[in-house]
């Protein structure tokens, strides 16, 4: 038995222990969170569950398989429509199936659709795959309007989640029951997707992503590997669609069009496609933007776009990447040395952030206002956009923040390097990139 074998076995035991704890924490969080939430918060949490499952499914393609899809909402939507049909069927006395099982039906529907479409779309990766997925999405979205029988046309399809037989007393009438229903499926789907990523097929998906040619010479047909990922991804997207159908009791073409597909890509990317949990982080952030921030400002999509471009340019490993940048510092025990520079850096960052957002909001208010309505609420203040004082103040704040950043960014950078490079590892920013997907 080689030395490495012993190391590996020890590591494996430790890893499994760590995983058990993580899964347990995950479950506990899912159980406890709603107890702290308001009714509105509960809806958001349920939405996060749906979005997370969908984004994780999407990342099976983009992050793990290197397949960029512009049409993955098709499988989410089809799963949703199928679930609505099932709910109608059960509700009208077709079969006594507890509706808590709906997502599995949505998943199977997504799986079949993915199998049909994937059988030709996965032949190539890259631009061709991306464009086929886009074309299919446009086709399905257009069909959803035309084929009223299945899709219900413009109004979509709706049903009632409470009509099925109860499942051990659960009837999914109050929102809290809907949340737990979504949370259980979220947990199960995440669990399954994680273990898929650790399976031979999942590992080979990474290999094919990296180098499809080489994979052929170690016995694997890259198309089949892609197809397996694609079908699995379609399955979990369908499950997400099923949860969605139960929560909202309505599915429309807006759930499967290219805009919906774009949104899930944004979620996965902002969260970080190189990490398993990345899409969940992205789903949380985007759902909050979509619900909380959208309640505060009409410009939330603009901010979403800026966040996305910012991620692509400045943090290609996503928000999770930003967090994981600190693992070496943590291992070095030097994380605490970063607190002070970060806090100092936060001051000009906040200033420029508040300043610029205020200017943007004021500009928008001035454009869209009804005449005479010059006062707007902004960061807990009431601002009169007709006066030049507010404009000057926020411009100065923004500029001060930006100038401040010019000084603090190098300082933060130096501090980060010092905290990370104490170890004699071949540590460099690219190391994280390589270690991702572990």
């Amino acid at each position, binding site marked *: 038995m080689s030395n490495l074998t012993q190391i590996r076995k020890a590591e494996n035991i430790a890893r499994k222990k760590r995983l058990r704890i993580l899964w347990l924490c995950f479950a506990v969080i899912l159980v406890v969170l709603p107890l702290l939430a308001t009714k509105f918060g509960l809806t958001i949490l349920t939405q996060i569950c749906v979005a997370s499952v969908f984004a994780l499914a999407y990342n099976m393609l983009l992050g793990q398989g290197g397949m960029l899809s512009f049409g993955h909402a098709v499988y989410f939507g089809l799963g949703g429509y199928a679930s609505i049909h099932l709910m109608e069927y059960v509700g009208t006395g077709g079969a006594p199936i507890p509706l808590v099982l709906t997502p599995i039906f949505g998943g199977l529907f997504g799986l079949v659709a993915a199998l049909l479409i994937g059988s030709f779309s996965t032949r190539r990766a890259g631009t*061709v795959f991306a*464009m086929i997925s886009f074309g299919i999405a*446009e086709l399905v979205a257009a069909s959803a309007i*035309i084929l009223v029988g*299945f899709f219900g046309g413009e109004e979509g399809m709706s049903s009632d989640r409470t009509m099925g037989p109860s499942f051990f007393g659960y009837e999914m009438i109050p929102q809290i029951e809907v949340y737990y229903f979504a949370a259980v499926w979220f947990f199960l789907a995440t669990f399954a997707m994680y273990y898929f990523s650790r399976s031979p097929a999942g590992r080979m998906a990474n290999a094919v992503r990296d180098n499809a040619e080489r994979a052929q010479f170690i016995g694997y047909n890259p198309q089949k590997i892609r197809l397996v990922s694609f079908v699995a991804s379609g399955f979990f997207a369908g499950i997400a669609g099923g949860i969605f159908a139960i929560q909202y009791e309505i599915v429309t073409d807006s759930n499967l069009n290219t805009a919906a597909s774009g949104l899930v890509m944004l979620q996965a990317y902002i969260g970080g496609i190189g990490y398993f949990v990345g899409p969940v982080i992205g789903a949380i952030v985007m759902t909050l933007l979509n619900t909380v921030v959208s309640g505060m400002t009409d410009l939330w999509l603009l901010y979403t*776009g800026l966040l996305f471009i910012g991620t692509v340019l400045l943090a290609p490993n996503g928000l999770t990447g930003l967090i994981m940048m600190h693992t070496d510092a943590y291992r070095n025990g030097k994380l605490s040395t970063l607190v002070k520079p970060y806090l100092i850096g936060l001051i000009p960052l906040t200033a420029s952030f508040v300043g610029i957002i205020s200017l943007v909001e004021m500009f928008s208010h001035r454009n869209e206002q009804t005449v005479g309505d010059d006062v707007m609420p902004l960061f807990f203040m009431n601002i009169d956009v007709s006066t030049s004082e507010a404009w000057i103040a926020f411009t100065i704040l923004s500029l001060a923040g930006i100038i401040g950043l010019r000084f603090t960014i190098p300082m933060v950078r130096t501090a980060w390097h010092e905290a990370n490079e104490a170890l004699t590892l071949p540590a460099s920013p690219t190391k994280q990139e390589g270690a991702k997907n572990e």
Partner: protein
Amino acid sequence: MLETVIFSLLNGLVYGLLLFLLASGLTLIFSMMGVLNLAHAGFYMLAAYFAYTISLYMGFWFGILLAPLIVGLIGGLVERYGLRQVHQFGHVPELIFTFGVAFLLEEVVQFIWGRDQLAYNKPEILEGALFTLFGADFPIYKMFMLIVSVLIFITLFLVLKHTRIGLIIRAAVGHPQVVGMLGHNVPLIFMVTFGVGTALAGLAGAIAGPVLGTYPGMASGLGGIMFVVVIFGGLGSLGGAFIASIMIGLIQTFAIAIDGSLADVLALAGIIVTEETFMYDIWSTTMPQVAPLIPYLMMVVMLIFRPTGLMGARES
């Protein structure tokens, strides 16, 4: 009947040439840089908005002259400070970046100009009918669009055939590595290419704004069709893009002009379809309803059987 055919032909040609104006810029960028610019239609839209604003102060003609230049400049900057950063990570991040730009442009346009359609109008001199045939008018403005598109097409053709830049571009289509080997300043060439490509989209937007409408959805409306054109024609092939543009333009307008459904066809064969018939939705769908679907169907089928498209040299 003849009237429908003639007008569909003319409208199809106008629409097709407009598509080509967009597709030519997209193809140029793809040939040189290997990037499928998903934000292309966004620049098209941006130019329509700029042209509108400029036309308010300086008149229509300055609008269509300056807007493409401004958009080209913005395009160059986007390449320089955005695309170039992600270039090193490969094609997928590049696609993602341009997707982000497309997303952002749509939001920025709404932020600055609002969500409603703008009253971007044609100048008086281009108002009215050029000729009247069978009682229907053919607007002067469409002829104007036709002429501009054809002029651009001829210019592009001459530049490609007879200039040094054209030679490099033609070489780059099949062999992207050639540009670097010729010892040119590749980053600068990329920036200029992207600028010129987006400026072409800008020109299309500036002249299409008054007829197709200047509103936040104008990019996504045309963007999809534009990808169909370049992919169906073959990525990187100007000739292919030209053929595909005209084809799609004609198919789209004819499909809208022909009012009929499969049920009508079946009726001719003696099969009567009623609401009870299995899959009634499919049989009763009319051609105008299916029209927006056809291009995507063409694209998907092409990609499955011939990923290089009609005349394409490479896939990605």
